[in-house]
């Protein structure tokens, strides 16, 4: 079998697995977020937290709960890093510098997991497991909770209530994320991912040199890093590290875990609004965009354009032998189509157009299938915009699932869409205006791509990088921290406000003039609107970076 054939079978096997779990796993998640029965552990949690699980929240209270939880999390994570030298398992590392601690705290709480530091030489084991890994769980749960609240807005009528954030958070963590994490971690450990508290083992190599074999609670963090679309590696080189991703089949599992929840959430949406076909339509939009992107990334990487790949004979710089070009390209596409940002190869050394695809994936707003929760709410916003555009074309009041898309709704959806482009483009411009682009490793168009990639990744809460750029300076840590913070929480506020106004409405019964939102026509329109909006917004920037380099 050639590498191309094997790569195609690899992608098809992932598609088959995701199709197979869509219904059962989606139905399971639906029962988790809509059920009311409580386990003893959950009752204990509610008592300790001091919430009444039966009390529902308005969108404002829901949003304030999300923000309060995230603010406290940032503060806690910041302090944990600042005092790590006084704590257990610090491995003798110094406290993290203030601007770095701020950046990392924001990064992990916003589900971005952008890393300015090298894990193996900066973070002690306690910070990794009790700080960073905990946020991997809860930031993922926050994303799913917000998506569920938005869907409740569509599903409910004439009510101000959107559910209870604390209940959603607890149930999602304990019933969805934790059980899969335990099973996944055991599977990864079986493949060779380490799970220990060792500070490192010094060995003498065959030729008499020395090497320190690092240790750490890696498997427990690795699994949730993928499952929660977080992406923050235990080690600097993330899933390229043999201790994070030792074999070709752990690589398959990691990609599967990345895509599992985002691709199954449309089922939850369909179940909650009482029409499974609406879920299929959303899943179809995600699948079309994702397959196109994965295919193109593979084509660009396997064709190996660019001077260095031509000289080498393959785009193999920054890639591992066991994954080679195709499985690296597939991982890279999956990680940028979601908000994961984990990498098993180094995007900076990809072919110009292959790297450009990865940038484009993030610029899509990470909706195909996007981060856990964030992908679903992002795509529902695009569906709302599509309904509006379609309504303008035929001169009817736009509605989606019986809810009128009036001026308040479309304003909120537009604001949501505008947040990330504003952050990405002003951030990139600011870096050049202040000369901070000079920390880029590469020169010319590729240097611009490094800066653009950094802001795109941070503002979309992805976390992957064209890693040649040095971002450990106070300016970069502060600027990217702000982008991550605003890129996460402004959209969340707009989404919850939209959910609130949808929930208040009385549904309009479908009439002949209603645009059916489960048909291929609508699926095609959402795909079109997504691609056109992104192309109009980012094409000039892409033309100066990857397109200038690759064409």
């Amino acid at each position, binding site marked *: 079998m050639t590498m191309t054939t*094997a790569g195609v*079978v690899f992608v098809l096997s992932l598609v088959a697995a995701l199709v197979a779990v869509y219904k059962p796993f989606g139905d399971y998640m639906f029962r988790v977020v809509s059920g009311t029965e409580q386990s003893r552990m959950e009752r204990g*949690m509610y008592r300790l937290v001091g*919430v009444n699980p039966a009390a529902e929240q308005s969108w404002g209270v829901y949003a304030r709960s999300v923000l*309060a939880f995230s603010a406290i999390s940032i503060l806690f994570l910041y302090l944990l890093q600042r005092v790590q030298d006084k704590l257990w398992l610090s491995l003798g590392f110094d406290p993290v510098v203030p601007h770095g601690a701020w950046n990392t705290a924001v990064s992990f709480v916003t589900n971005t997991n952008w890393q300015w530091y*090298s894990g193996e030489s900066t973070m002690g084991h306690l910070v990794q497991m009790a700080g960073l890994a*905990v946020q991997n*769980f*809860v930031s993922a749960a926050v994303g799913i909770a917000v998506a569920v609240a938005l869907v409740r807005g569509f599903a409910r009528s004439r009510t101000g209530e959107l559910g209870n954030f604390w209940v959603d*958070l607890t149930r999602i963590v304990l019933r969805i994320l*934790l059980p899969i994490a335990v099973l996944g971690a055991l599977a990864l*450990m*079986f*493949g060779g991912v380490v*799970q*220990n508290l060792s500070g*490192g083992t010094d060995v*003498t190599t*065959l*030729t008499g*040199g020395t*090497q320190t*074999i690092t*240790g750490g*609670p890696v498997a*427990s*963090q690795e699994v949730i890093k993928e499952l929660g679309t977080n992406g923050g590696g235990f080690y*600097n*080189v993330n899933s390229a*590290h043999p*201790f994070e991703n*030792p074999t*070709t089949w752990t690589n*398959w599992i990691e990609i599967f875990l990345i895509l599992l929840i985002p691709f199954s959430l449309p089922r939850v949406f369909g179940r909650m609004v009482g029409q499974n076909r609406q879920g299929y339509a959303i899943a179809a939009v995600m699948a079309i965009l994702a397959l196109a992107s994965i295919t193109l990334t593979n084509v660009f990487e396997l064709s190996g354009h660019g001077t*260095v790949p*031509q*000289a*080498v004979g*393959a785009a*193999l*710089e*920054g*890639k*591992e*032998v*066991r994954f080679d070009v195709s*499985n*690296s390209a597939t991982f890279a596409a999956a990680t940028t189509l979601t908000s994961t940002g984990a*990498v*098993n190869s*180094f995007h*900076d*050394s990809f*072919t*110009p157009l292959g*790297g450009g695809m990865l940038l484009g994936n993030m610029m899509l707003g990470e909706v195909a299938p996007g981060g856990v929760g964030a992908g679903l709410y992002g795509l529902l916003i695009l569906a709302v915009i599509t309904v509006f555009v379609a309504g303008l074309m035929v001169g009817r009041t736009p509605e989606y699932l019986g809810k009128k898309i009036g001026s308040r709704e479309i304003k909120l959806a537009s604001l949501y869409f505008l947040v990330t482009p504003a952050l990405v483009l002003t951030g990139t411009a600011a870096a050049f205006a202040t000369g901070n682009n000079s920390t880029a490793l*590469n*020169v010319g168009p590729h240097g611009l791509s490094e800066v653009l990639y950094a802001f795109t990744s941070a503002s979309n809460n992805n976390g992957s990088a064209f890693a*040649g750029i040095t971002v450990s300076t106070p300016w970069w840590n502060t600027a990217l921290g702000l982008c991550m913070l605003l890129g996460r929480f402004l959209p969340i506020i707009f989404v919850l406000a939209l959910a609130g106004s949808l929930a208040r409405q009385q549904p309009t019964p479908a009439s002949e003039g209603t645009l059916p939102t489960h048909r291929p026509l609508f699926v095609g329109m959402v795909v079109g609107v997504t691609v056109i909006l992104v192309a109009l917004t980012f094409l000039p920037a892409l033309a100066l970076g990857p397109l200038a*380099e690759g064409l």
Partner: protein
Amino acid sequence: MRLPTWLTQHLAALRALLVFTVVLGLAYPLALVIAGQLPGLSGKADGSLITEGGTTVGSSLIGQSFTDADGNPVPRYFQSRPSAAGDGYDPTSTSASNLGPESVVDTLSTDPEAASESLLTQVCARSKAVGELDGVDGRRPYCTTDGVGAVLAVFRADGLTGTVTRVVSVNQAAPATPFVSSWQGVPVELARPGEDYVAAGGLIVPVRGDAPAEPAVPSDAVTASGSGLDPHISPAYARIQVARVARERGADPAAVRALVEKHTTGRSLGFMGEPGVNVLELNLALDERFPAR
């Protein structure tokens, strides 16, 4: 006493975070650390360490450099890929090169601190070195015979257009010989260290040359991995090293080839990933079968 709502929310948040920290940040990972000590998982959870004669010599998952103290390849061992992790295969400083696909112009300088090699020149230099070590043709497209990137800065009369006025081979400085003597009728000059020909308006033109499209030195031998710790080399790279290793150890090449075969991992389930040869395990097996004379 009734607290204001903004405060109760933050107290609930703090309590929730503390509970989650205990459950997800301590109980969950520590339970898995304990599970890692179960039979079947214990060696793996501890890092797949390899012990040879009572001492730990490495991990079967982490690559090593098989070089001497000066960084020169030890010829009796199969060589790993180039590595950008620290000084090579340093797990405390993992890294990729992060150099882009059009990194083709070196920064030449008389000060070694200021000088830096483009990715293209690194590839060319490695290819030449491997070719010499293993007795195969080390030429590659876009590489000069002296092992740097074959790249010209072409100056034209009107910037991007017009007649060619000056041509510089940007990666070659004296005492090298330019890899082509003239370009469109204009003699090619050598680069002078410290000069930036791109800033001066030169158009960068990599030159393909007449090297074979499929070089004898495989691609993984001339590129650094993403982790800098890649434990594998491709079967093709192992193949070109067999003759040298067999000669150095006075072994039958066929027997060495059989050992390579034995330490080659195929694709999982026949379609996942690509085959690789575990270099450390192979070299350990060689030391056992054919101890150095």
